[in-house]
């Protein structure tokens, strides 16, 4: 199943075909097909255990997940052959559902190291501490943070909401081509959700694409997806537009499971 009506290959950023993946010998993804073009926002929805996060982790390259069949092309290149850091440097960004803490390393240092790794790969000059702080000023404003967050250790002692917002700061700084947001909305209160969603919306660029992995409809009221896909049992069982998300909100996921079983 293709997620896009635009077939022209030039604009394809991510092309997933028949992707199977397992963790600890258990098959989680059972034949995913998905195409994401530049400029698009896709929402991947589905009940718990449907494989949403696995899909995000596999695209990111987490070593715990084994791809057993299928292919993933990113900008026409074999994504699965690339190391996680190479994917990141090429512009694939994964906002983590559970961002990890790194003690003793300041947020500023971590951000600058990441940015410089990406810049180096792009053939751009690395930024020194002062230049970096200048470049960071606008990004901080976008997410509504002051620079006190920069001197705190990465995610150490951050609240759930702060961690999610920190992921979005990284997104803003690294300016990826493909942003995959893995349940960035979960654990946020209404105000925080609004800020985060608006930030993600503001950060959209014509040459980039966003994949929102989410359990809930509410984030989609702030960022309008071009396409909505429903994942169940490791497959995309239905694709549609924003209306599909609304339908899910009303009816839940069960009717899709039944439909899939019948079909």
């Amino acid at each position: 199943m293709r997620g896009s009506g635009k077939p022209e290959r030039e604009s394809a950023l991510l092309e997933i075909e028949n992707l199977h993946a397992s963790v600890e010998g258990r098959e989680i993804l059972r034949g995913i097909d998905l195409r994401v073009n530049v400029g698009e926002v896709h929402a991947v929805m589905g009940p718990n255990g449907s494989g949403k996060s696995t899909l995000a982790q596999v695209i990111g390259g987490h070593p715990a997940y084994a791809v057993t069949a299928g292919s993933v092309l990113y900008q026409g290149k074999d994504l699965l052959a690339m190391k996680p850091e190479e994917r990141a440097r090429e512009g694939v960004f994964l906002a983590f559902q559970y961002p990890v803490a790194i003690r003793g390393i300041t947020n500023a240092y971590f951000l600058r190291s990441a940015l410089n790794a990406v810049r180096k790969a792009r053939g751009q000059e690395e930024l020194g501490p002062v230049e970096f702080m200048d470049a960071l000023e606008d990004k901080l404003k976008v997410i509504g943070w002051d620079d006190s967050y920069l001197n705190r250790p990465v995610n150490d002692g951050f609240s759930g909401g702060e961690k999610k917002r920190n992921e979005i700061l990284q997104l803003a700084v690294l300016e990826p081509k493909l942003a995959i947001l893995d349940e960035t909305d979960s654990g946020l209160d209404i105000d925080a959700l609004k800020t985060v969603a608006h930030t993600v919306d503001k950060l959209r660029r014509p040459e980039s694409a966003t994949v929102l992995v989410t359990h809930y409809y509410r984030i989609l009221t702030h960022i309008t997806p071009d396409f909505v896909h429903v994942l169940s049992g490791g497959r995309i069982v239905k694709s549609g537009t924003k209306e599909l998300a609304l339908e899910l909100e009303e009816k839940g996921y069960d009717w899709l499971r039944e439909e899939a079983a019948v079909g």
Partner: protein
Amino acid sequence: MTGSIEAQVLQPYKYGFVTDIEADVIPPGLNEDVIRVISQKKGEPPWMLEWRLRAYRQWLKMTEPHWSNVTYGPIDYQAISYYAAPKAKPRLDSLEQVDPKLIETFEKLGIPLEERKRLAGVAVDAVFDSVSVATTFRETLAKSGVIFCAISEAIREYPDLVREYLGSVVPHNDNFFAALNSAVFTDGSFAYIPKGVRCPLELSTYFRINASSTGQFERTLIVAEEGSYVSYLEGCSAPVRDENQLHAAVVELVALDNAQIKYSTIQNWYPGDEAGRGGIYNFVTKRGKCLGRNSKISWTQVETGSAITWKYPGCILQGDNSVGEFYSVAVTNNRQQADTGTKMIHLGKNTRSTIVSKGISAGRGQNTYRGLVKIMKGAEHARNYSQCDSMLIGDKCGAHTFPYIDVRNSSAIMEHEASTSKIGEDQIFYCKQRGLSNEDAVNMIVNGFCKEVFKELPMEFAVEAQRLLGISLEGSVG
């Protein structure tokens, strides 16, 4: 995955070469005659020999301690040679007299002794096996009245000072290894900082074991007079050998009223190979006495080498308002074992101590923190803060924590925090997903874990310490 993390932490041992130099070695074995020969070779006064013999006689009655959380085969004390010195007799006052092979050796270790190459701001005493071969910047130091020389020289030149303080912190019969050291110690450094003087240079001693089948028994004594300040650094390495070599040192520090001593160690003795063959047994007694009011002694150690480490640099906080600090990073990889920590003995009023210990275990390494905080009856309003963190890399290593707390005064305030974490795939993946290489990711995580200790090291050593752990410098912003 974990394999590559482990490979990161275990850097190949870079200092394992042997210097081919003719040595004057006493045949293996230990008895009173051997001690007399050592004393004679050092040109010592009779009181020093008497002191050594007293220690030896005590040692004969003592038994090797085995309460620590390490295992090793029996040590044959009669199979060790207790004295080895390069044959060309070094003259301490002139570097031209030093065997070029020795100068080359220290240069290879990154410790240039020649005038033009000397480390700026650091005076170095270079100890090779049983003797000090050179001490740099002696004249600069002499101008401010600071004495910095080999302890064997100090025994001859400044007998009154040495006699007053030697054994005053670690008595000759303190423990089995300290008694052995007191009987057979060969060289080490002596530093004396006069009243009110802030030592203009960092003082440092570099210890090199070269000869085989020998033990190294150095002794260091630092005395800081009223209102003085000194920062002392210590480094060490040894060749790769299949045998286990014993290193049993004693370090004594004395701080008088308002004096401060900062003592930093980077211990990089040969750790043995992957299967646990060879490596140094590092059985060391280090203790400082805050004798005066408002005095302060700080221990910072980065322990990456040795097959077995057994050391507890401690502070006796005797003067009122005195302060003791202990900052430690201990790394055990492969079959290395470390049982290390500190002792803080609070005697004076308002005495304070801080303990920050970071243990990193990888491979089949076993890392034990063992610490004692003792608040004596008269220590009104004493305070201690202890923090013990362990990091595990892989699933075959171990971390152990044994904090002992003994409080005999109810006005004391004690705080203890401990944590154990595992460097995991998720942490590494997180960094990689932001574009960092595996190497940079591991460096960053380990470096962050050790940060509280590294920031206590003098700059030159901080860089060295981070490099030793395979860590790139964390030039943190802000």
